C-alpha cells in the first residue's frame, strides 16, 4: 500500500498559483500535465460521466507505469492495461457491468500477476478521497473491519480516545491528477454538474492537479446564475477542456444515455482476442481524435442517446 503524505499534498496546494485566468486548453495539452508513474484518478463511476475524451487523450500518449483509481472501474481500465500503461489499479470493483460477465482483459493481467489491484471497499474508496480532500491523513470508519480486504492491504485500526471503540483508519488518497467530466464550466474552472456527483468532489479536492472536461463552456455569468449547482470552485481546477459528448460511449446525466451496443461489441471482441482486442480498440477509437471518434458513431446515434436521456429526466 502506498502511504501518501497529506502534508506534502497540502504544501503543494499552498504554494500553487490561484490566479483567476483562462484555463481553457485542448485535451492533448491538458494530458501533458500527466507524467509516467503518476496516480490518475478518473471521475464518474462505472459507465456514468466517465471523462472519456480525456481518458482517450491520455491513452494516446502511451504513458507508462500509471496507477489508476476509480470508485468502480469500467472497461477503460482494460484499455490502459492493453496498451501497457498501467501498473496498479486502486478501486472497489473492476468490470464492465453485469450483462457483460467477467472482464476478460482485466482477468488476463490480474490472474497472471501482471497488474496490482488494491481492492478497497466502495466506502473506503470514498473515504480515502474524502480524507485527502479534508487534508487529514485518515478517517475512522466501520468499513472493512474483520475482512481479508483489510488484512491484504494492511489496513490499520485506531482506538477511539473517548469511547475505546475500535475503528478502521482509512488512509487518505491524494492522486497526482484527477480527470473529471462535467456538464458546464467557465474558462476559469468553476464547474457545475447535474444529477449524480459520484465521488468527484472529494476526488478533485484531494488531487494535486485537476483537469476538467465539460459538455459546455459557459460564461461566468451563467455560472453565477445558478451558484448552487457549482461543484468545484475555480481555484481547485487547473485545466478546462471543452468536450461535448465527452463521456461517450458512457452516459452523461440528462444529456445522453450509455451506448450499450458499443459495449456489446467491445465485450465480444475482448472475450475473443483478449489484450489484442483492447489494443485494437485504442488504435481505432482513441488514437484518432475524439471528434473523429464521435463522427464514427454518427450524429443519428448520438441524437438517439440524447433522446434516451431526455425521456428519463424528471419533469
Amino acid at each position: 500500500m502506498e502511504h501518501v503524505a497529506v502534508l506534502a499534498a497540502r504544501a503543494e496546494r499552498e504554494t500553487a498559483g490561484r490566479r483567476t485566468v483562462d484555463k481553457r486548453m485542448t485535451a492533448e495539452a491538458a494530458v501533458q500535465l500527466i507524467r509516467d508513474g503518476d496516480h490518475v484518478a478518473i471521475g464518474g463511476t462505472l459507465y456514468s460521466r466517465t471523462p472519456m475524451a480525456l481518458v482517450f487523450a491520455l491513452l494516446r500518449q502511451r504513458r507508462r507505469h500509471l496507477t489508476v483509481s476509480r470508485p468502480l472501474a469500467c472497461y477503460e481500465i482494460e484499455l490502459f492495461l492493453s496498451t501497457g500503461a498501467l501498473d496498479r489499479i486502486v478501486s472497489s470493483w473492476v468490470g464492465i457491468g453485469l450483462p457483460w460477465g467477467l472482464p476478460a482483459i482485466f482477468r488476463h493481467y490480474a490472474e497472471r500477476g501482471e497488474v496490482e489491484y488494491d481492492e478497497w471497499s466502495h466506502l473506503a474508496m470514498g473515504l480515502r478521497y474524502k480524507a485527502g480532500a479534508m487534508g487529514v491523513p485518515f478517517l475512522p470508519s466501520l468499513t472493512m473491519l474483520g475482512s481479508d480486504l483489510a488484512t491484504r492491504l494492511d489496513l490499520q485500526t485506531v482506538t477511539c480516545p473517548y469511547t475505546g471503540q475500535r475503528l478502521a483508519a482509512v488512509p487518505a488518497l491524494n492522486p497526482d491528477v484527477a480527470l473529471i467530466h462535467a456538464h458546464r464550466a467557465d474558462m476559469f474552472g468553476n464547474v457545475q454538474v447535474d444529477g449524480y456527483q459520484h465521488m468527484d468532489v472529494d476526488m478533485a479536492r484531494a488531487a494535486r492537479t485537476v483537469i476538467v472536461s465539460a459538455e459546455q463552456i459557459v460564461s461566468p455569468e451563467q455560472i453565477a446564475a445558478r451558484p448552487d449547482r457549482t461543484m468545484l470552485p475555480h481555484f481547485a481546477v487547473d485545466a478546462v477542456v471543452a468536450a461535448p459528448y465527452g463521456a461517450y460511449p458512457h452516459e452523461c446525466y440528462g444529456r445522453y444515455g450509455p451506448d450499450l451496443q458499443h459495449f456489446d461489441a467491445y465485450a465480444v471482441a475482448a472475450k475473443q482476442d483478449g489484450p489484442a482486442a483492447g489494443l485494437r480498440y485504442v488504435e481505432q477509437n482513441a488514437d484518432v481524435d475524439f471528434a473523429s471518434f464521435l463522427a464514427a458513431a454518427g450524429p443519428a446515434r448520438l441524437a438517439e442517446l440524447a433522446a434516451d436521456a431526455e425521456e428519463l429526466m424528471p419533469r
Partner: protein
Amino acid sequence: MSDITAEELMAITASRLLTDHKVVFAGVGMPLLASAVARHRHAPHLTIVLEGGIIGTSLRPGQLPISTNEMRAAYGAQMLTDITDIFLYAQRGFFDYGFLGAAQVDMYGNINTSVIGSMERPRVRLPGSGGANDIISLCNEVLIVTQHEPRRFVERVDFVTSPGYLSGGESRARSGLLAGRLGAVVTDLALLDFEPASRRMRLCALQPGVTVGQVREQTGFELLLGDEITELTPPSAEEVAIYRELRDGRVAVETP
C-alpha cells in the same frame, strides 16, 4: 406455477421478507427486483436506496438499470446525493435492510466476491467488493440471496470480501463490527438463518417440493437444522405477474 425460474422464486421469497415503512439498500439485478416487488405488493412505503447516490427510486417497468450509477436507477427518486454519503447513511444506522448476492458464502455468512482460488495465484479474479463489504458491515439487517449449489455454499470462503459472522460466536463483534446482523439467506431451495449462539447457518424452511436431503446435497458444509422446518408458500400468480411486469415491462396480451 411450474414455469417459475430459480431467479423468480428467490426474488419473490426475498420480497416477502421486506416489510412496509422500512429502508432497503439494494444492488442491481435480483435485489432491486425483489425490493420493487415488495413495494408494488405489500410494502408501498418501502424506500429503495441505491449506492450510486439514489434515495427513493421507483422503477420503470421493463427499464431496469444495469448499474446503480446510471440515469435509469434514479427514475422517480426523491433525492440524489453522492456515493460516499449513501454509505454514511448506512453507517449511521438508517438502512433497515442490506441485500447481497454471493459468488461464495460459508457457514458463517462470510461472502467472497474477490477471487476463486488463492489471492496470490487466482484461478478466477472476480471484480471485487464494490459496496458489498460496506453493506454487510453497516446495514441493520443483511439478506443474502443466491442460488443453492455446492460450489457457492462452501465450508470456508477462499477470501473474506464481506464479513459475515467471521469464525462464529462473538468474532464479528470482536473485529469491531458492533452493529448489523445477518438475517436470512434466501435460495432456490430454502430459507436459512444463523443460529444465535454459534452463528452457524441453519435451515428454517424449504421451497415447495424440496427435501432436507436435497438441500444438504447442495451445501458444501454441515447445515444446522431448525426445530421445525416448514414449507414456504409457492409464489402466487399475482407475485409472478408483478415480478415479470417489472422486469419486462407491460406485455401486451396477444389475442388469437
